[in-house]
Structures are given as C-alpha cells and as structure tokens.
C-alpha cells in the first residue's frame, strides 16, 4: 500500500534483474549472470529505499512471513500457515520449524518480533513505515507462533508482509546487513565487488534446496544501455529482465540466441508536480499541464510504442482499473488558455530528471509539448543521489518524472504534505483509509475506482504510462516472471538449460 517513491525511482533498476548461462565452463548450467541497471549503496532492504536491493535479495537471500507469486497471490513463506480472527484484527502465524539463518543461528518467533519492533521503532529508518502503520502489537505466543494485532482492518496486510521491507532478520547479524546480509533464503551472500557485481551462492541448508537449480547467481551492474546491449551480445550476461532501451529490442528479437519478453510492471510513470509550491498549488496549472502532454507521442518517442498509457495512478492490468486517459485529452489550445487564466503563461519551470532512460527521453518530448503550450520548461538531468536528497526528501523541485514501482501505492497520495508530492487532501486521505480497511474485494475495487477518478480529476500529476517490463534472456533461461506484481523476482525457480 504505501509505497516508497525512492524505490519506485529505481524502477528501471529493479526491473533489471535477470539470469543467464555462464560463459565459464566450470559453472556451466548452474551459474547465471543477471544484468542490473542500478547498483545500490547498501544491501539492507529494511533500511534503504533503492528498489534494486529488493530486486536482488528479497525472497532470495531474505525471506518474509509470506511471499507473492507472479499473479500477485499471497503464499506462505516463513509462516507455514495463519489464521485471522473474526473481526479481522488479529493474525496468528504458525512459523516454519527448523529454518535457520545463513550464519547458523536458528529462526524462531523472537526473530519475527525483533524484525517488526525494529521497523516500527521511533528511530527506524525503514523506507516503508506505512506498511507497519496499522500494526498495534506483535506478540510471541511460543517459539513457533506469533500473533499480530492490528489497530484497523488492513486489506493488504498479508500482501504487504511479503515485501522486502518486512524481511525477517536476526538480532545477531542485523547490524552488518548493509554490507554482509544474513537471511534465511535459498541463496546466501558470497561477495560484492562495488561497481562491478554482487554474487550469491545456493544455501545448501535451505528447506527447498533440492528444487533450486542455480548454484551461483551473479548480478552484474551495467548502467549504460549501449554497454548492456554489448554485454548481452558478447554472451557475458544471461538475462537482463529490466532492459532499459526499447529501441534495441528488434535486434534481440531477430537473434535466435535470445528471447525477448514484454510484460508489465507496477510502475506508474508520472510527471510529478510539486503540489505544495506555486504555481502547481493551482489546479488550473496542473490541468493545463495535463492537457499539454500528449501520451501517444511520449510513448511512441520515448518507449518506441512499448507502453500502455494511464490516466490515473493505477496499473491497467489491475482488477480495479478504470480508463481515465480521456479526462484531460491532449489539447494545446486549452492548455494555453488555462495557463493564461492562471497567469503563468510564458514563465519558466524546471523539470528535474533522474538518470533513467524512460525519464530523460520523456523529458525532452514533454519539454517540446509544454513549449507549444507557452511554457518554457528547463530540463535538468540529475544524479540519483541528488534526486533522492533534493526532490524526494527536500521537495526542492517544480516537476520531475519518475516511475512508482511499488504495488498498491495509491496510498502515496495520503502521505501528507511532507511526501514529495506536496499533496494534502483530506477527502482523498479519508477515501484511502476506507480502501485500506475494506476487506471485501468487490467493494474495495469500487473504492479504488473512485480513488482513481479523484486523483485524475484533481490532476495531481501528469499521468503518463505504465512502465513495461522488457526482458532479454538467453535462449534456455527459464523461470523469470514476465510481469512483476512486486519489486522482487524469486530465483529459486529459475533454471538455465
């Protein structure tokens, strides 16, 4: 539910997880080299918002109480089973027996309580504290049972418990997790050569070790699209699940050594506007921007047609999706009139863009479209660290372009004026609280549809398109998800033939 922008920003990076055949003979068939666009600065998913951490480690090195499959259905993980009380407020988890951490320490209910208490603490640096907000208390019933009490009903609770932010960590090893992560998963940490690669090896003590095909997983960090393409063609990489350059796909499609998979992600790409700041606190300006942008041109020019337009903040493949792309149809004259009415025609606005191809390319097109509507948009390409500091944390921007890859992230708009949207609307916050507390699927979907319309009507941001999942795999690599309902990609089911 409440997703982090930070990690969303790294959408492309998270997408970039993949697997492939190793070119080195000794490991052939059991080693995979996965290309990844962004390298994180820490390896602790419970302390850092960078999406590539979840992409590599969640449900691979770390495990959570639950997990999620490709369709987004919740499955048991460290919790073997659970029961929910009549009122929907008390969850009792039966934990797995005999699971161990990679350093040999045992897993039990105390570790679960420790992990939750740490994330919920006042001074916690957990990047998705919103996931823990509905939790009242975590109680150890016995070594194999944990009881979690909620303050309010939370329809997404079990789904949220699968995310990397809720990874179960051990008090003995947690301090070193940023550089030497220790979890309970099917793969364990081997080495991290900064600027080059992260290596995981199979955990032979894992309960499902017998069904894990890969012995060794190398995540190779390649940020440049041209270099990524060259590495794939040279056979150095087996899989690139978040391939950043759609224009290069025809080349791989034509090559029998590769297979190209186009799926969807949870990443809504938005032209974010700083609602707390003039002139974007004026709805007419936001509407004018929405009228000025032409999604068809952006998708064609920036994504080579490989994306689905969105009119609000909800993925088109979701069950509650409403097509709102017609709310503010592309109409330069109308945009011009609205800009003039609001008294901002002819002014300069800055568009600060993070270093992801979908963003930098869209920026150039949006700049031209705003120019047609009489607004001089100045594009500033900034580094990811700068983006996190200045835009995400300090709200120091007019407009930016970013993909929000977290699932169920419409709660972002209820995060208050301190969140980088600068959006604070009591009506929406109330609506979101009702969505979170609604347990009935049909009723919740109806509310979600209402929320989509609410955001579209308010023109909170320019809603652009749903980020596609473009994967390039060597022939013979199996088991990667075509689409991503979550930030992670379990590698236990991946094989190289």
């Amino acid at each position, binding site marked *: 539910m409440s997703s982090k922008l930070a990690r969303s920003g790294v959408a492309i990076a998270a997408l970039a997880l993949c697997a492939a055949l190793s070119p080195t003979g000794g490991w052939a068939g059991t080693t995979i080299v996965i290309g990844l666009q962004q390298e994180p600065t820490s390896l602790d998913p419970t302390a850092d918002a960078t999406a590539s951490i979840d992409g590599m480690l969640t449900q691979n090195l770390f495990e959570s109480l639950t997990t999620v499959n490709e369709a987004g259905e919740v499955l048991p993980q460290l919790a073997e089973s659970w029961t929910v009380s009549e009122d929907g407020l008390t969850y009792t988890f039966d934990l797995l027996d005999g699971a161990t951490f990679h350093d040999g320490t045992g897993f039990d209910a105390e570790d679960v309580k420790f992990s939750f208490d740490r994330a919920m603490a006042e001074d916690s640096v957990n990047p998705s504290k919103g996931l823990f907000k509905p939790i009242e208390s975590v109680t150890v019933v016995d070594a194999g049972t944990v009881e979690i009490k909620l303050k309010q009903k939370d329809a997404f609770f079990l789904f949220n418990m699968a995310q990397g932010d809720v990874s179960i960590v051990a008090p003995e090893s947690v301090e070193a997790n940023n550089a030497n992560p220790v979890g309970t998963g099917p793969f364990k940490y081997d080495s991290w050569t900064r600027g080059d690669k992260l290596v995981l090896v199979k955990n032979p003590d894992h309960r499902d070790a017998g069904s894990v095909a890969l012995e060794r997983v190398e995540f190779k960090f390649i940020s440049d699209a041209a270099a990524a393409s060259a590495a794939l063609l040279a056979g150095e990489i087996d899989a690139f699940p978040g391939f950043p350059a759609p224009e290069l796909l025809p080349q791989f499609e034509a090559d029998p050594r590769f297979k190209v998979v186009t799926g969807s992600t949870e990443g809504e790409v938005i032209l974010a506007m700083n609602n707390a700041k003039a002139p974007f606190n004026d709805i007419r300006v936001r509407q004018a921007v929405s009228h000025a942008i032409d999604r068809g041109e952006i998708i064609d020019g920036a994504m080579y047609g490989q994306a689905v337009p969105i009119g609000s903040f909800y993925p088109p493949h979701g069950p509650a999706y409403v097509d709102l792309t017609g709310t503010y149809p592309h109409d330069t004259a109308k945009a011009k009139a609205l800009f003039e009415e609001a008294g901002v025609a002819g002014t300069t606005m800055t568009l600060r863009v993070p270093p992801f191809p979908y963003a930098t390319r869209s920026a*150039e097109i949006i700049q*031209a479209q705003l120019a047609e509507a009489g607004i001089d948009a100045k594009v500033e390409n900034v580094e990811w660290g700068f983006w996190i500091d200045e835009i995400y944390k300090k709200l120091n921007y007019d407009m930016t372009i970013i993909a929000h890859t977290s699932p169920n992230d419409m709660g972002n708009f209820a995060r208050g004026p301190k969140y980088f949207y600068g959006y604070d609307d009591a009506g929406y916050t109330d609506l979101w609280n009702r969505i979170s507390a609604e347990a009935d699927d049909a009723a919740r979907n109806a509310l979600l549809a209402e929320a989509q319309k609410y955001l579209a009507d308010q023109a909170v941001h320019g809603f652009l398109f749903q980020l596609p999942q473009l994967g390039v795999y060597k022939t013979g690599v199996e088991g990667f998800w075509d689409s991503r309902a979550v930030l992670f990609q379990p590698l236990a089911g991946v094989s190289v033939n």
Partner: protein
Amino acid sequence: MTRLPPNLIIGAVLVALVAGTAALSLVWTPHDHTLLNIRGKFAPPSELHWLGTDQLGRDVFSQLMVAARNSVAVALISVCLGGVIGVALGLLASAMGGVVEDVIMRIADIGFAFPALLFAIMLAAVFGPSLMVAIIAIAFINIPVFARVTRASANQIWTREYVYAARAAGMGRVTISRDHVLPNIAAPIIVQATIEFAIAILAEAALSYLGLGAQPPAPSWGRMLSEAQTLMYLAPQLAIYPGLCIVTAVLGFSLLGDGLRDITDPRLVRQR
C-alpha cells in the same frame, strides 16, 4: 610569393564550410531544429528532410547546422578566453623573469597536468552541467598552453637589439611587451590558437557526449552522437552524420593551423 601549401588551402576550405554553416544557421535552417514530429521519426533523406529525421522526428540537417554554431561558439569563446589570460601570463613571465617567471611557469605546468575532463566534471558537480561549464573547462586547459608558447617566443624577442635599445631609451617593461614583443610573437600565437580551436571542438564534443556540455534541446554533435549510440542497429546514419561533422571541423582547423605555421615559421620557409 611562394605557392600556398595545400594543407592551408584544404584547411581553409573546411573551416570556411563549418564557419559558414554556423553563421548561416543564425538566419536560416531548413526546419526548426527543435520541432518534434514523432510519427515521422527515422525518415530517410528526402527533399523535405535532406538528411532524414532522428528518433524524435527532428530534422537532422537543421540540428547539425545549429550544432555547428554551438561548437564554433564554444571553441571561439573558450580559446579567446584562455588565450588572452595565457598570453598575458606568458608576457608577464617573460618580462619580469626571475621568481615571477618561475612561479607562473610552474603553475602552468600544474595546469598542464590537470585533465580538462576532470575539471569539467568538478565544475558540473558544483554548478550543474551547462554549456558554460564546457566553455570554462576548455578555456582553463588553454591557459597554460598559451602561457608557455608566449613565454618561449617572448624570451627570444627580449634578447634582440631593438629591445635593448628601447630599454636604454627608458621604456618600461609593459610598454616594450606591448609595442615590441607582442607584435613579433603574434604569428606563433595565431598558429597555436588555430590548433587549439580544433582541440576545443573535440573537447566540446566529448563533454557534450558525457552530458556535461550542451543541454537538451540545444543540439550538439557530441550529444547527438551519444543519443545515436543505442540506435546503431535501427539508424546508424544518426551516429555517422555528427561524427563526420566533428571530423570535418577538427581536420579543418588542424590543417589550417599546420598551413599557417608552414608559411609563418621562418625556419620552415627557408627550407622550402
């Protein structure tokens, strides 16, 4: 008058072509270089678009023309800026001699050791990337070059009899530098400036390629090259055109510089 060396003629023609294109772009381009037409992207060369269109449907020929203007402007400003400061420092070093000369030339040596790219990255980190960053960085690397050439040439002039005579007549060092030294070392400085022009164009292309120079939508050969990189499979011509432009400009200025040296360097003239 001996016949002009061929490298001078070829160089002058190429430079005239680039400079002429740059000047023409101020008043006329076939299309608005920023005009997008995404449905008409990757168009082949036609009567309408002489070199076709790029990945956003912009006219490539117009972009190359405006980029030529950017390149020439950056090179001109940065070489002049670096040249004026460098020549002044060189003259000062030569005129003062002793400790002043040693200090200035050692600082110039340090400047030589400092890579322009690193300097540009540092500036870009502080002020944000812009064309100004590229200009300052290129000007900076030009200062020690001109200081060294000026001082070496000026030191020879200071030993001439007419300079001794001027000093005996009571002329000050500044006056002598201005009236006697500078006019007599103008030739090597102009030759050096022409060669530095070629280097500056290359440096601007490199900085823009790395995103430290011209920012979108301002076109630049270097940036066009970097944008074309992932399009090599779809549209290789988008990398070839700006590449050829850079070659033409750099080759032109290098040949022109060589040619100018051939006709102005007395030793070379005597050999011929």
